[in-house]
């Protein structure tokens, strides 16, 4: 196996997994919150928030990456403060890759979860209210379990997107083997070399295998959830 892929390729695989995992895990709570707010609340600036959430989908990834660089870079207004206050640095770190892929995947996640929230029968939430549950508890005990399939879909979409994202990542955190060289960056690199198709294909296969595993797992989990609710 080690002969099949170079150690730095393996490094890229490991890094991509880590980046995609954290990008998904960290953005999930925020994604759920945002989706719920957009689906159920009326507030000033809602359309603005909705627009901002979709921005990474609309903008070419390089632009997103560039904007991230300007904002979260060491000298960027946010990056600067984060470093000063929390010692949190994104630039040239895998955390930056996670931030970039997380942001790129965010609209997908939010949309999936929002669709699920909108499909929840509000009469069930009302029933929970009459049984004494406050808003938070209604959310936790009724809404959340009912949107689990949607959350699952959102998470898988985000994970898959995070595994495949390239443009924003390389623009924001560049391509430092072992630190920010994710699978797509590695693939891109070898594809730019004449005759690099063979190695690229091997990396693509790994990428596909990882994402498919996540996909099949999620399908399986989704079915289990659906069966549970159908009441077998």
């Amino acid at each position, binding site marked *: 196996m080690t002969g099949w892929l170079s150690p730095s390729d393996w490094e890229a695989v490991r890094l991509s997994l880590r980046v995609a995992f954290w990008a998904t895990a960290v953005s999930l709570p925020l994604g759920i919150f945002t989706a719920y707010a957009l689906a159920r609340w009326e507030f000033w600036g809602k359309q603005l928030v909705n627009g901002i959430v979709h921005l990474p989908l609309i903008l070419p990834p390089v632009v997103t990456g560039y904007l991230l660089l300007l904002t979260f870079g060491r000298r960027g207004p946010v990056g600067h403060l984060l470093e000063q206050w929390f010692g949190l640095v994104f630039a040239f770190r895998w955390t930056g890759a996670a931030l970039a892929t997380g942001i790129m995947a965010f609209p997908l996640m939010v949309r999936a979860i929002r669709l699920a929230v909108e499909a929840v029968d509000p*009469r*069930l939430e*009302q*029933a*929970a*209210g*009459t*049984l*004494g*549950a*406050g808003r938070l*508890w*209604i959310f936790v*005990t*009724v809404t959340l*379990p*009912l949107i689990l399939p949607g959350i699952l879909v959102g998470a898988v979409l985000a994970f898959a997107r995070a595994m495949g994202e390239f443009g924003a990542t390389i623009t924001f955190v560049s391509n430092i083997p072992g630190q920010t060289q994710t699978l797509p960056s590695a693939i891109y690199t070898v594809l730019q070399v004449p005759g690099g198709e063979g190695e690229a294909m091997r990396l693509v296969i790994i990428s596909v295998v990882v994402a498919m595993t996540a996909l099949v797992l999620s399908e399986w989990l989704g079915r289990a959830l659906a069966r*549970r*609710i*159908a*009441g*077998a």
Partner: protein
Amino acid sequence: MTLQVAFRHRFAGFDLDVAFEAPPGLTALFGRSGSGKTTIVNAVAGLLRPDSGRIAADGAELFDSDSGTFLRPNLRRIGYVFQDARLFPHFTVRQNLLYGRWFAPKNETGAELEQVVDLLGLGTLLNRRPGALSGGEKQRVALGRAILSKPRLLLMDEPLAALDESRKAEILPYLERLRDEIGLPILYVSHSASEIARLATTVVLVDHGRVLRAGPAEEVLSDPEAAPGFGLREAGAILTVSVDGHEADGLTRLASEGGPLWLPRIAAAPGTVLRVRVLAQDVMLALERPQGVSALNILPTEVSEVHHGHGPGALVQLTMGKSHLLARVTRRSAEALALAPGRRVYAVLKAVSVASVSIGAESPGGT
């Protein structure tokens, strides 16, 4: 607890404007399909914010359009058995039943899971999810769920409509106990006059979004004028009686103002005061005391009112002491027997005619 309800609400094409008071006990909302019952109940629960008005429990405002008060449903502690069961599909029956427990004050006593499960016959269903329940089973779980949430007021929107007679017969005494022993005030929507007659201490007749009549159940139900509202077949009076003793052949002897009454065994200790509903159509009138008949209960009474409707029948109000009976007879018989206020007649009543459904424990909230 006394519930004061007075509000207006407009839907496109439907206008609701109601005001009534629900004293302690069970208040029945009765009215045709689409008359506004569910809307009223929703407003009390806090699921609907009426356009204007005021809803208060024991003076504490739940809603007041003037002051802008609107208490959220979960702060009202009002249990609600919905017309559609609304069970949580992702929870098992047991989890559904216990849902309200998480939020109920821990120190207050209330119904126990086992007791409710037994009563509602849910024992074998506890680990199923609602998707695998029959219509009636769902309704029973919804009933149990509301009761177990230790509410201070219970709203029930046709809770027994999907249930068979024998299941109803098991549940009704329990609702009476909730009403009387725990003293839980109940707002109850039903199309069944016999259910209402048995359970209600107060009756509110709703029609086209307006309150037609509201008052103590005995009054509203014994009122010949109000009878058509329930359907003539369900007209009847409520007698307050006390248990006198149980006899060997399975009958229970009751003391009424008109004399002794024998009914099939009633599980109540001697001395217990009961409400017995006697349907107008089950009362036969005779000028002389009949002999050699199967009817055991023959009460001497005096006609106090004869109410002729549009049809071939007449509703006759009979007085014995301070109690009333209603009898429904044909106009032809009314003439043949020359029924008029003051005429003395015997009311003949079969022991078996008084459906057990219409025997209720005297509610503390009753008149």
